[in-house]
């Protein structure tokens, strides 16, 4: 029940007599509230709207007037920016590369995390809680600490994009994202698994279900919401990642994902906002769709890691 609903009681402004002083104040504060809410939201959207409009404006217009002027005549909208940036830069290829990186790098850690999380949640073994704490504590380690040793190892064993056969060039970044993504995934899933009622497991034990049956026929089906949240969360995180990609994939056009390509564009085009805004919007396309359609799960993923209401 929201805070506001509780305000609808006798004696509050909501139920004051019409046109009485309290009623007027109530209406005004109601109006003020809506103005504040809508105003803040609109202000918040300005940056995004700005580049959206700009990406459809011709180069000369962009450089001579603010994007808000696009709303008044003469209307000069064009698709040139998009066609130019898609054909001349590496964006198309990068778009595909991002999928090649994100999809496996999402699946592998979550699959491994699911098994480990179940063990942490429902199996007993020595040092279990300490090991779990260590895994969660590892979230503190800035990824930077791991780059040099891991990279050296990869290079020494020929696990690099240039040395690997085509199709497998992304193995280093898949493995890296797996390692980096496991702590949070394990933490999230273990908490979720632990919250399942113990009687479910006891009943299954009495019924004669073994570990495999319990995991695959009871726990996993019941965990679909948590798994969905985690998949979306992890996918967006990897899709939007820059640093890990820079380190383990590098900037070569054949393998660079969208983030790296966009970052390079920003460096090389400086103030060429006609292309940059189009490129930026192109890179935002997939995350925005995933986000808008599956927002519920994304939010649930964040909440599951932080607080229960």
């Amino acid at each position, binding site marked *: 029940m929201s*805070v506001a609903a509780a305000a609808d*009681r006798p004696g509050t402004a909501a139920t004051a007599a019409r046109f009485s002083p309290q009623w007027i104040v109530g209406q005004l504060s109601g109006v003020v509230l809506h103005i504040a809410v809508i105003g803040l939201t609109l202000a918040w959207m300005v940056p995004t709207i700005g*580049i959206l409009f700009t990406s459809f404006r011709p180069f000369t217009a962009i450089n001579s007037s603010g994007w808000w002027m696009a709303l008044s005549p003469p209307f000069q909208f064009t698709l040139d920016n998009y066609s130019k940036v898609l054909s001349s830069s590496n964006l198309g290829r990068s778009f595909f590369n991002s999928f090649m990186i994100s999809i496996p790098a999402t699946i592998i850690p979550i699959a491994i995390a699911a098994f480990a999380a179940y063990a942490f949640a429902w199996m007993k073994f020595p040092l279990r809680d300490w090991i779990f704490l260590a895994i969660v504590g590892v979230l503190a380690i800035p990824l930077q600490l791991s780059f040099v*040793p891991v990279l050296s190892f990869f290079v020494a064993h020929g696990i690099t994009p240039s040395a690997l056969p085509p199709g497998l060039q992304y193995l280093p970044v898949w493995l890296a994202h797996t390692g980096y993504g496991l702590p949070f995934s394990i933490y999230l899933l273990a908490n979720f698994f632990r919250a399942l009622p113990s009687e479910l497991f006891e009943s299954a034990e009495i019924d004669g279900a073994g570990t495999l049956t319990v995991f695959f026929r009871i726990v996993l089906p019941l965990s679909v919401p948590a798994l969905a949240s985690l998949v979306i969360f992890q996918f967006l995180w990897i899709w939007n990642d820059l640093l890990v990609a820079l380190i383990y994939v590098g900037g070569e056009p054949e393998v660079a994902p969208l983030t790296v390509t966009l970052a390079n564009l*920003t460096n090389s085009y400086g103030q060429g906002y006609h292309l940059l805004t189009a490129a930026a919007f192109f*890179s935002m396309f997939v995350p925005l769709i995933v986000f808008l359609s599956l927002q519920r799960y994304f939010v649930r993923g964040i909440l599951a890691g932080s607080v229960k209401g």
Partner: protein
Amino acid sequence: MDWGAVLSGIPTLVVVIVAVPAVLVAYIVGTEYLVRLLPDAFRPRVRPWIWVGPALVFVFGFLILPAILTAKSSLEDSTGNFVGLLNYQRQLGDFPTGGAWIAIRNNVYWLVLYTLVALGFGLLLAVLFDRVRYETFVKSLIFMPMAISAVALGVIWKFMYWYQPPGVTQTGTVNAFLGLFHVQPQIWVQDPKVDNFAIIAAAVWGITGFAMVILSAALKGIPADLLEAARVDGAGELTIFRRVIFPLMMPTVVVVGTTLVIFALKAFDVVYVMTGGNFETDVLANRMYKLLFFSGNQGGAAAVAMILLAAVVPVLIFNLRQFRAVEARR
């Protein structure tokens, strides 16, 4: 576009998507049959290690061991000889103008401003939005910046901060807005006096939705009975917020706050894209990257990484303790 390469990549993708879960399931099922060969008493002792095994290997191999090795290399020079704290001395020497000190100063700006502003805005928005019916809709609009990459965010805000010399029509939103009040345009992204704050503002825009969502959930978790009791007791809305709502949200506020501090300390992407760490906007994470890939200074990079770790660990411990306190209340 090289369609040939794209098409040859698709089979790999499919194979990986199918093969990886299949291999893992085979591993678990296969080892289960092996475990069943053991006498009853041994099964529950052996099985957990099989299930956590792969995870432990990855976490150890990609995070723990490398962290230890990096710590070790922070104490070595480029040929691997032990040099004690030399790297740290080199990095942290020439206080206060040395490169690392500027980065540390900036990290402090980040961890104070980024955290407080995002928290404050998040709280404000959570409370305001709770009172309107279209709450879900506006919340998702505020939350949307979380979906985009820091690189895209960097482009968006570089564009917002675009500078044209005074007297010319301003094309950057911020400078144009200031122009309405006859304030001179600023070179937001390159002027050392303001650029850190400009970047932090951009990052706050990206993360406030995160704080808002969590705080909103905590807000809704306050039992309506408590608020009604307070109203019956005669408390006004502001008093209720100050003395009932906010104190009850405090544990969550602390958890969110410490999480934001950790994000602030780890900031890399936004700074990299907007300034590359130049114009005195450098932060430790960027400095480390540059030392590693541009200067080839492994020892120095490791030292900076360790400094970063030293800053993050106490915050994380605090964060976890607070989180357990929130959990325990449930």
